C-alpha cells in the first residue's frame, strides 16, 4: 500500500463533496500527487480501490493531465515557464542556468534525487517573469543571484 490512511481519508471526503462520485477523480489524483510526488498505474489501482471508482476511469483521466508527473521526480521539482512572456525576458537562459547549476538537463533528476528540472507552459506569472515553480511555490522576478540563493536554501532543506 503506497497511499497513507490520511490520503485515503481525504479521498473519501472528496467523494462526499460532489453530487456525482466520478467528479472526485481529479481531487483524488491531486491528493495522491501531494503525498507521493508522481502518479503511476499502481497508484491508480489503489485510488480505485479506496474510493470504489473503476480503475480505467482513474487512469483515463490521470493520463490527460500533465500536472501530475508519471515518473518519480526529485524532492524539489523545478518547473520553469518557457512561454512567450517569460521567454521575452530570458526564460530560456534561466533554464540553461539551472541546467548548469544542477548539472542535469531538462527532464532529468540529480543522482541524489534532490532536484528535477522541467520546462512547462504558462504558469500565470507573466508580469513577474522569468519565474519557476518549485513544488507548490512560485519564485518570480528571477535573476542569477536570486536563483543561487533559492538553490542554496533548497539544498539546506534537504
Amino acid at each position: 500500500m503506497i497511499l497513507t490512511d490520511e490520503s485515503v481519508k481525504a479521498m473519501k471526503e472528496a467523494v462526499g463533496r460532489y453530487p456525482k462520485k466520478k467528479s472526485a477523480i481529479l481531487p483524488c489524483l491531486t491528493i495522491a500527487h501531494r503525498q507521493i510526488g508522481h502518479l503511476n498505474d499502481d497508484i491508480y489501482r489503489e485510488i480505485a480501490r479506496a474510493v470504489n471508482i473503476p480503475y480505467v476511469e482513474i487512469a483515463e483521466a490521470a493520463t490527460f493531465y500533465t500536472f501530475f508527473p508519471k515518473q518519480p521526480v526529485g524532492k524539489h521539482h523545478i518547473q520553469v515557464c518557457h512561454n512567450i512572456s517569460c521567454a521575452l525576458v530570458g526564460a530560456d537562459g534561466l533554464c540553461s542556468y539551472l541546467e548548469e547549476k544542477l548539472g542535469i538537463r531538462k527532464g532529468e533528476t540529480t543522482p541524489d534525487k534532490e532536484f528535477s528540472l522541467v520546462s512547462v507552459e504558462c504558469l500565470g506569472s507573466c508580469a513577474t517573469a522569468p519565474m519557476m515553480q518549485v513544488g507548490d511555490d512560485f519564485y518570480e522576478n528571477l535573476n542569477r543571484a536570486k536563483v543561487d540563493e533559492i538553490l542554496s536554501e533548497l539544498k539546506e532543506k534537504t
Partner: protein
Amino acid sequence: MHYSPVITNADQAIKSDKLHLFRYVEDPNQKQIDTYMTHGGYTAWKKVLNDMSPEAVTGEVKESGLRGRGGAGFPTGVKWGFVPKDSTKPRYLICNADESEPGTCKDRVLMERDPHGMIEGMAIASFAIKSNLMFCYIRGEFGECIRATEAAMHEAYDKGMLGKNIMGTGYDLDMVIHTGGGAYICGEETALLNSLEGERGMSRVKPPFPAVEGLYACPTIVNNVETLAAVPFIVNNGAAWYKSMGTEKSAGTKLFSLTGHINRPGNFEVELGMPLKDMIYSPEFGNGIPDGKKLKAVIPGGASTPYLTPEQVETVLLDYESMEEHGSMLGSGAIIVLNEDTCIIWSIYKLIHFFRHESCGKCTPCREGTGWLEQIIKSILDGKGKPGDIERIEDLCENILGRTICPLGDAAVMPIQSAVKHFRGEWEFAIEHGRPMVKTDFAFT
C-alpha cells in the same frame, strides 16, 4: 508566503470612485473577511438576499453591459438569462479560475489578495440563476490562490455568508473548490465541465449550451473570476454607474496584464476604451520599452489574439470594438509587448508549441494541424525552411480555422495568420537565407 509580488495600480483605484476591482489588493488584510467587510464586502450579497429577486439581479447585470472577462466577451447577464426558467433540474454556477492563457496573470491577483470579492460575486450569480451549489475551478499550479480561496471559503461559512438558510432567508448555498491538472483547455467552458465530471478535459459540441445542459446535464453557468468579482459592485452601485464607465459596447473597467518588453510589467485596472499606447508608454502603467528599443509588435489579448503592428498600436483602443476594427481581439486583456530584437518566427514558435501541447486531441484539424504547423515553423526558425512553406502554413491555418468544436483551433492559428500577414518579409528572409533575420537571444542575467 509565496504571494505574487506583481505590480498593480491599487494606488489609483483606492482614490477612484470608478476603479473597483483593484481597490484593496495592496492591503494585506483584504483576504480576511473582517477587513473585506469593513471595506463594504458582502453588503451586495445581503442586499440581493433581502431585497432582490433573481430576475432583478440578472436584469441589473444585463443592463450594466458587463461582458465576460475570460476572453470571449459575451454579455454576462444575457448568459445568465439562458438558464431555462421552467427547468426542474438542479442548477450550478462555476467560477472559471483556470487562468492559463499565456500572458494572463490577473485573476491570480484577485484570488490571492481579494478572494472574498470572487466568492461574493459567485454567490450573487448563484442566486440569480437559482443555484444552491457553486464550484470554483482553480488551476492546480496556483497553490497560493487555492490556499487563499479555501481560507476565505471557510470564513464565509463561519460568518454565515454560505451554508444553510443564509442570514435567515431560507436560501441555501454551498461551495466546492476543484483544482485542475495543468490543462489549458479546461479553461474552455465545456472542457471544464468534462474535467469537473472526472473525464478527460475535452470540449463538448454546442448546442446544447451549458446554460441548458452543462454539469451533469443540468443548467450551468460558467463565468470568469474577474467577471464575477465585478458583480457585487454592480449590485451596490447600480447598472447606470457601471455603464457610465468605458465605451458604449465595452462598459466598465477591465484588468490588463502588461508583460514582455516593458519597463513596468504589471496588472492594471483601467476603464475600457483607453488607448493601448497609453498603457504601454504612460509612466503610471508600462512606462515604455526598456533600453530605448523600438516596438516591433504587440499581442494585445493573450496568446490567442492576432498581432498588432506599431502603426496599429498608435490608434487602437483597449475595448472590444476597437480591437476588432484593428483585426485583433481584447481577449483576456493580456498585452504582450515585443521589441525590435524579437524574431517574429521565434515568437510564433513559442505560441504554436503551446497550442500543440494544449490541444486536447478531439478534433483532427487541431490535433494534427497544430503539430504540422509547429514542425514547419520550427524548421524555418532553424534555417531549414523550404520554398512553399509560407503557403503551406497559410493553407493549414485556413483548414483549422472554424473547423474545430472549441475555439482552441482558432486560437492557435489567428496569431500565425496575423504574423505572416504583417511580417511576411521576415518569413521570406528566413526561408531564402537559411536563417532568421533577427537572432533572438534574451539574456538571463
